């Protein structure tokens, strides 16, 4: 009973993650500037990678035919998911800060840019 529940929950997370990955890739093409694309990338990182990894761990735990191998797979899947959750935003922070400081990516269109205002790049917007 519990095994079946873990299996179906894991399958939902895995297949849902694949669908969300496709949508995030579409968003990557439809958004027209660097910062907006960063948001689409976040969608792909959390629902598209972390959740499917949790799902993979649940599926392997539910498959008793795997014997003790299922604990290896589940352990690796869960810890990788948690590390991805902790480290994915670090990469986003680095890219976003680098893009803004080097002014390689112009945040257009934008309503207000408080960071540029405070750095004195473009007076009041």
């Amino acid at each position, binding site marked *: 009973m519990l095994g079946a529940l873990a299996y179906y929950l894991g399958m939902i997370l895995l297949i849902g993650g694949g669908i969300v990955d496709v949508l995030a890739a579409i968003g990557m093409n439809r958004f027209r500037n660097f910062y907006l694309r960063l*948001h689409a990338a*976040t969608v792909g990182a*959390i629902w598209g990678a972390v959740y499917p990894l949790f799902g993979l761990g649940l599926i392997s735990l539910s498959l008793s035919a795997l014997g003790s191998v299922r604990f290896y797979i589940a*352990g690796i899947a869960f810890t990788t998911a948690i590390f991805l959750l902790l480290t994915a935003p670090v990469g986003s922070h680095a890219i976003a800060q680098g893009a803004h400081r080097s002014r390689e990516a112009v*945040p257009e269109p934008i309503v207000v840019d408080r960071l540029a205002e405070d750095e004195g790049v473009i007076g009041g917007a």
Partner: protein
Amino acid sequence: MRKLAIFLALIPPLVALYLLYTGSLSLFELALAIIIATVISYLFSSALISRPGRLYNPIRWAWALIFAILYLTVVEAKAHLSVLKLIFVPSRARPAIVRIPYSVESDYAITLIANSITNTPGTVVVDVDEERKYFYVHWIRATDLTEEGAKREVSELFERYARRIFE
């Protein structure tokens, strides 16, 4: 004495992490885990921990668990659905880089808030001003451009839990 306590405090969590990762409880893995954890703790414990008592405070761990469950279900679902909607109607995006003040002290709390903001689609921390205590957040659908209003919409929940977990 204090250095020794810090050094010893980091070993059990590292052993637990190693055993969770390998998914095995054999004597060989346990011995390897303890050796590796000792070396890593010797190298990095003084940089990672300043108050070992907090690491073993069950109330903080309980808040961390509550926050993890709340964050991974409700908060992420709301943020993902709003950004997935925007993918189909990109013209409804209203991007802005807003200034969001924070009032926590420790590096861990600041990191937790910044990571939580970035991990929710729709908001990305672009820069942090640690002297004046501001996050600069790129917000895909800015509904409130004032500092207090943006904080209420984006980071207030994270800050409340970061204070309970790390401060």
